[in-house]
Structures are given as C-alpha cells and as structure tokens.
C-alpha cells in the first residue's frame, strides 16, 4: 500500500498528458483520492450547456448574480475541487507538484506563484492564452488544511472574478502584516 502511495505521484505525472489531451484540461484523477481523507469536499463540475442553463436562473436584480451572469456568459466550463482536512499533512507536496506539473506547457503561463513556508499557504495561478486572449485560468491553492483546485475554461475577466470572492457573504481578505519567515514569490508574466 505504501509503495503504491509513493509511486502514485509519478504514475499520475506520467498519465497527465494523456488525460489532459482527452479532456481539454479537467481534473486529474489523483485529486479524487484526496476526497477520502477530507473532512469536507466541494465538487463542482459544470460544462458549457450546464453553465448556460444555471445562468438562466441568476437574478437580474441581484447585483452579485448579475455580475456572475456577465462573468459566465462566455465560459465553457468550471471545475472545482476543494478539500478541507481536519489535520495538517493530509496531502503531500509531491501530490500538489503533480497537479502543478500539468501546466508546465507552452500554452499555460504561470502568472502568480506564492510560497509561504510559515503559513503554508501556497497559491499558483496559471493563465491559458490563445491568440493573446485569456482562454482559461487554473488556480491551485495548497493551504495547511485545505487544498483547492479551480479550473475555469473560457474567456473571463479576472478582476471581476476576484471581486466575486469578497461577496456572497464572504468578506474580502484583509491585509495582514508580513511575517519575516514567509518566503513568497510573485512572478507575474513568467512564462513556463
């Protein structure tokens, strides 16, 4: 069992290119395995027709839903997996590296990469560009007790999306004083 666990990241890493070509970048199967360990799991799979159908139920009077409707108008899919664990160390760094590795291709640009050793908050944001236009975004957020993978396929306004993060009852994040031990890297525009 432990041998399988040790080899799993490598197996997944080798399997990713095939999976990606077949599914136009959806979630790797290894992510599903974490659901067994998670205290809470959020799973959202919405393809284009589903998004358009769901958008029909968005209110035109509610400002948040109005923004959301505008945002998803041209999207082709939204795929989210979020795992919340009761203890730290439920997932290993190689497992997250496997997730990140699939975006080390010319069509993907890693625009933000944050590493915080002290707080353990690591966030990676990858943009997919087609003809110099945004064609998709992937967010991998690996926190001490939480692992989140977001894949949004299609053109979208990133600022609008970030705005929505502070709504729906969840307050926008406030600036905290920087810890001296935090090691972070922000490499905007970095091409991988």
């Amino acid at each position, binding site marked *: 069992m432990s041998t399988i666990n040790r080899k799993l990241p490598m197996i997944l890493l080798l399997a990713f290119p095939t999976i990606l070509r077949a599914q136009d970048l959806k979630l790797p199967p290894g992510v599903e395995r974490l659901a067994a360990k998670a205290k809470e799991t*959020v799973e*959202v799979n*919405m393809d284009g027709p*589903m*998004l358009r*159908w*769901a*958008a*029909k*139920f*968005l209110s035109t009077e509610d400002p*948040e*839903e109005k923004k*959301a409707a505008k*945002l*998803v108008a041209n999207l082709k899919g*939204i795929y*989210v997996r*979020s795992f919340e664990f009761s203890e730290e160390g439920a997932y290993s760094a190689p497992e997250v590296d496997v997730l990140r590795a699939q975006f080390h291709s010319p069509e993907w640009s890693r625009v*933000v990469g*944050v590493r*915080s050793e002290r707080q353990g*908050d690591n*966030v990676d*944001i990858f943009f997919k560009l087609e003809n110099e236009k945004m064609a998709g*975004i992937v*967010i991998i*957020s690996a926190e001490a007790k939480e692992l*989140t993978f*977001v894949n*949004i396929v299609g053109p979208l306004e*990133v600022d609008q*999306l*970030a*705005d*929505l*993060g*502070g*709504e*729906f009852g*969840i307050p*926008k*994040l406030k*600036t*905290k004083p*920087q810890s001296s031990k*935090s090691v*972070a*890297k*922000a490499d*905007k525009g970095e091409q991988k």
Partner: protein
Amino acid sequence: MTETNKDPNLLEDALRDALHRKDAPEGFTASVLARIAQQYSTTREVKRTSWLSIVSAPLVRWAAFATVSICLVIGGVHYRNVQREREGEAAKQQLMLALRIAGNKLQLAKEKVNEINTSRPERHPQKRSPRSRS
C-alpha cells in the same frame, strides 16, 4: 226521487250508518306500511337508475375522461416545471459556490502578492548609482 229524499228520517239513518265508527280490518296497518315501503324503494330505484344513466352516457363519459386527462397533463407539466426550477436553483447555487471559491483564492493570491510588495524595501532613487540612472 229516492226514498231518502222523501223521508228525512231515512236520510238521517243512512248517514248515521255510513258515518258509524268501524274498526280497521285486521292487518290493515301492516299492509299500509308495506305499501309505503314498496313505494319508497321504487322511487329510489328510479332515481338511481336515472343517475347511472347520466354517467353511462357516452358524452359524459368522454367529458370525464377528457377532464381527468387534462388534469393529469397539467399536473405533470406543473410537476416537471417545479422539478426543473429546483434543479436550476441547485445548479445556480453550485455555480455561485464555484465562483465564490475561485474568487476567494484569487484574492488570497492577490493578498499574498501585496504582502510581498509591501514587505520589500523600497528602492530609493538617490541610492542608485549614477550608472543605473543613465
């Protein structure tokens, strides 16, 4: 002219005889009650027969069938709409949740980047070397 008309006493006697109280014959009450009961049941039977005849009329039968069918169709469509509405609402909630999570993580990244930018010592122009200015 009859004899009673001729003699008033005879008329009186005849009247007295006619109006003389007589006991009902034996079984009279039972026969009356039996007749009443028979009449009542006959009336009900006639009424029942007429009601059934209305229901069994082809036109009424078809009308009833059509009404039930229409009610079933309307009920089915309504149920489907309600189901659709529920599914749509659930899909909307999923969509909002996905956007909320994505937006939240974007903000987290933004926040981390801001932290880094604010913590980095600003480069003062006066400290730069003359070569770097040119």
